[in-house]
């Protein structure tokens, strides 16, 4: 065996790099580095059957009612509103601190009630959710800048928690029902 082996020339490994490059390029092309992003929400647990829900104890001024109908129009606190004004409207409502009669007493008590129709488009729904989230994020950011001199995302955990208790994000979605009718 040994004598035969001696005659064999060494295999040229020069093309190894080329082969590896080929594979590398394949994986480079097929890799999708997309990180999934989205709006995180928590659903309320199913209501207990033997425990009827009473939301009567919540003062009406602390609820900001946002309705979306099947043709994607917004009705906010009984008035037609354009989506571009929703963020400012929500901010005014949350950060009212009892100044105006019909808006919230303080941010901790403020609840945004969101209701949509079965015919509402998902795009509109996400836009509304986004605007409401933006309102909260801006308020949190402002108070973070005032209290700690840093943006909300740069705060540490306890500071973030403090801000979060000041501005709890309470977006309530009512039990589904048909408001628009025709669907």
């Amino acid at each position, binding site marked *: 065996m040994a004598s035969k082996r001696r005659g064999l020339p060494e295999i040229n*490994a020069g093309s*190894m*790099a080329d082969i*590896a*490059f080929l*594979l*590398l390029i394949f*994986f*480079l092309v*097929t*890799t*999708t*580095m997309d*990180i*999934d*992003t*989205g*709006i*995180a*929400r*928590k*659903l*309320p*647990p*199913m209501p207990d059957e033997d425990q009827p829900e009473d939301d009567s104890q919540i003062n009406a001024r602390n609820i900001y009612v946002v309705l979306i109908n099947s043709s994607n129009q917004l009705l906010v606190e009984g008035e037609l509103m354009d989506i571009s004004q929703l963020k400012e409207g929500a901010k005014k409502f949350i950060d009212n601190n009892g100044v105006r009669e019909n808006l919230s007493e303080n941010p901790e008590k403020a609840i945004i009630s969101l209701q*949509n*129709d*079965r*015919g*509402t*488009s*998902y*795009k509109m*729904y*996400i*836009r509304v*959710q*986004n605007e409401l*989230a*933006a309102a909260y*994020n801006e308020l949190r950011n402002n108070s973070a800048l005032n209290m700690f001199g840093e943006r909300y995302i740069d705060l540490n955990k306890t500071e973030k928690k403090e801000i979060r208790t000041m501005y709890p994000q309470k977006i309530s979605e009512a039990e*589904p029902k048909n408001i628009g009718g025709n*669907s």
Partner: protein
Amino acid sequence: MSKFKKDGGKGMPAISTASLPDIVFMLLFFFMVTTVMRETTLFVSIQTPKATEIKKLEKKSLVSYIYIGSPVKRMQASYGTASRIQLNDAFANVGEIQEFIATEREAKDEKEVPYMTTSIKADETVKMGIITDVKQELRKANALKINYSTIKGEY
């Protein structure tokens, strides 16, 4: 420094490329490991809506996906164009969601169950009716952490 200056002036020796394959292999392995091959083939076409206030979805292993959209072209002949739900590799009815969540839970460690998230990947043209149904089913299944999948972008 003297080490390098010893045979200077004689002209540069050719740089050995013997370690080039090793470097390339290292890169190759990196990409092989990080690559996530899509487990499911999508039967529905999905263009997620845009949003600005988004969060990253962490711990991908704990995320279960629900796809909602109208069937892709080649499936339209047999399934029509109405919005449908896809779970794993098949179309599903709203009623199958609870079962789906249960099987997803079984596959995970008991400790991890509270951290499980359900990502709703829906097309922006989908109507809320179907989404509401899905949400109701998720509530019934007690899978309360959800994430509306969106892409970053301004309107």
